[in-house]
């Protein structure tokens, strides 16, 4: 297998998401949906992109890196950023039926889009789907596993290091109690943490080059789905802003601040 894999083209599909900037105030709309009127490429999605580009640069075979995103029209910005960072092409699945989609709806749409990308002229090659550890807005981390289940692919999550060795993916990950090294045959879905690498910044040349790269937009119908297929199975009933934390007592140390902290803790009954 190592020898035969060498000549086979590899297609890496990285999932990227357009999310509200976590540096700014994020909020829910009256329809109990996250306000997506403005956004950026999720910082956590720079790691899968970097992982894909490093695999491409280390490979002795043809590797194509695609970026795929599901989101509103504005998500094209995230796709374009992915092209600037180094993806060869990008796909945007956008549809009114996907507004407010839950994990089931989102993973169904992504799975159909991945199938569509895979069927799109490179059926002979091998496939690898790389995602971030979680989205920066939903933060569930459940999408990679749902994708693997829907697509029937191998799954390795929370990679802190990964490489392609002799045609198989070798991954280091940490579970709750142990560190593991796993090997997975392709095709596979792998999610990577922010420990996996140091993402690169696009330079001027890369930004100019990105303008010539293809960005394909799809509706649900284009990937063979109807609205019912992506209907949410979990519904948000209420969204309440937490009262913002307010500053308490701030003192400057005059040699007795440690004592004052202990007094405060005793008063608050947290000792």
């Amino acid at each position, binding site marked *: 297998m190592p020898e035969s894999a060498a000549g086979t083209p590899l297609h890496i599909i990285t999932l990227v998401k357009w999310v509200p900037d976590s540096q700014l105030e994020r909020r829910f709309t009256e329809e109990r949906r996250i306000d997506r009127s403005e956004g950026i490429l999720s910082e956590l999605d720079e790691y899968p992109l970097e992982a894909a580009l490093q695999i491409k640069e280390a490979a002795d075979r043809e590797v194509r890196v695609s970026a795929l995103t599901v989101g509103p029209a504005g998500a094209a910005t995230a796709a374009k950023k992915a092209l600037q960072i180094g993806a060869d092409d990008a796909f945007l699945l956008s549809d009114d039926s996907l507004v407010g989609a839950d994990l089931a709806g989102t993973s169904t749409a992504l799975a159909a889009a991945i199938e569509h990308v895979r069927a799109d002229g490179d059926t002979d090659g091998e496939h690898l789907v790389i995602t971030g550890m979680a989205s920066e807005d939903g933060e569930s981390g459940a999408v990679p596993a749902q994708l693997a289940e829907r697509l029937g692919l191998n799954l390795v*999550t929370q990679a802190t290091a990964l490489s392609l060795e002799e045609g198989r993916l070798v991954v280091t990950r940490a579970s709750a109690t142990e560190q593991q*090294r796993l090997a997975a045959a392709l095709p596979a879905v792998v999610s990577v943490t922010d420990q996996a690498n140091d993402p690169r910044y696009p330079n001027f040349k890369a930004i100019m080059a990105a303008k010539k790269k293809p960005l394909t937009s799809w509706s649900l119908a284009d990937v063979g789905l109807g609205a019912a297929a992506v209907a949410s199975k979990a519904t948000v009933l209420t969204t309440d802003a937490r009262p913002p934390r307010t500053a308490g007592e701030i003192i400057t140390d005059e040699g007795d601040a440690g004592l004052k902290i202990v007094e405060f803790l005793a008063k608050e009954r947290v000792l």
Partner: protein
Amino acid sequence: MSAVLVFFESLSEQLTTSQQELLTLAGTLGDVHVVTGTEGAAAAEVVTVQSVESVYSGETEILAPDPALVDLLETAVQETSASVILSPDTADATDALARLAVRLDTGIITDAVGIDAQRRVTKSVLAGSYTTTAQVDEGRPLVATVKPNSVQASIVAGHPPEVVSLPVGPSLTADGAANGGVEVLERTPLEASERPALTEARVVVAGGRGVDGNFGPLEELADELGAAVGASRAATDAGWIDHAAQVGQTGVTVSPQLYVSAGISGAIQQRAGMQTAQTIVAINKDEDAPVFEIADFGVVGDLFEVVPQIVEELRRRKA
């Protein structure tokens, strides 16, 4: 009463506090059945707890991240007709429950902090700035992961539960990758700490750039308070402490009763991981540090002077 399945990927000799919390929560929702990758008889001994009726396990031990755990869960759901399936919010359990939800054609809600009798799930979202309630459609089972420190653990010893061995075995084999699957090349246990696990601790003592490579005083304070030690990304990136200690948006989220922040400026990514703590105490040399905007008690000062004084005073009061 309806059946509630609780999934523990593995059980050691004693239930952890968060496992006790999860069994407590499950007990308020129905008859509890445990599903685990640990061998059945051993597991039953650990969960000899009132309200736990039975333990479902495989033919032999099944270790995460083996997808056979999903087969085990699916079979247990069929056997019990469970309407609620819960697990801790670890990565391996989330993977298994996410796949299970696809097989059951139902919704999954992660990181719950509460579930009521109507199966309404409460969670904290957008880095603790909102609280939401959500519900899985009527007629579909609820699949949810639950965060530690969400309920008060209250369990009572009971009769040993019935052990049900399901016809499921491990699927990860030594030559798995050569046969198109996944294989485990190496497992290294993480160093067990005497301290409580970071995500489960009721008190967390965290350090950042200001500790300048020396976590010693914070570790002493943590030992005095029975606390876990956390860190900002600056401290873990500098290599002063293991990455597993990172509290924040890309690290772990903690909701302890008390969070002591020392030498951490409190950038928004750090705050995202700790701002649902009940009480926050901050120590920082820089009076303009953003952490003071959210601290219940703040000290502008040198942590290397303040922290040892706290330790000394705590010891004096104990003596």
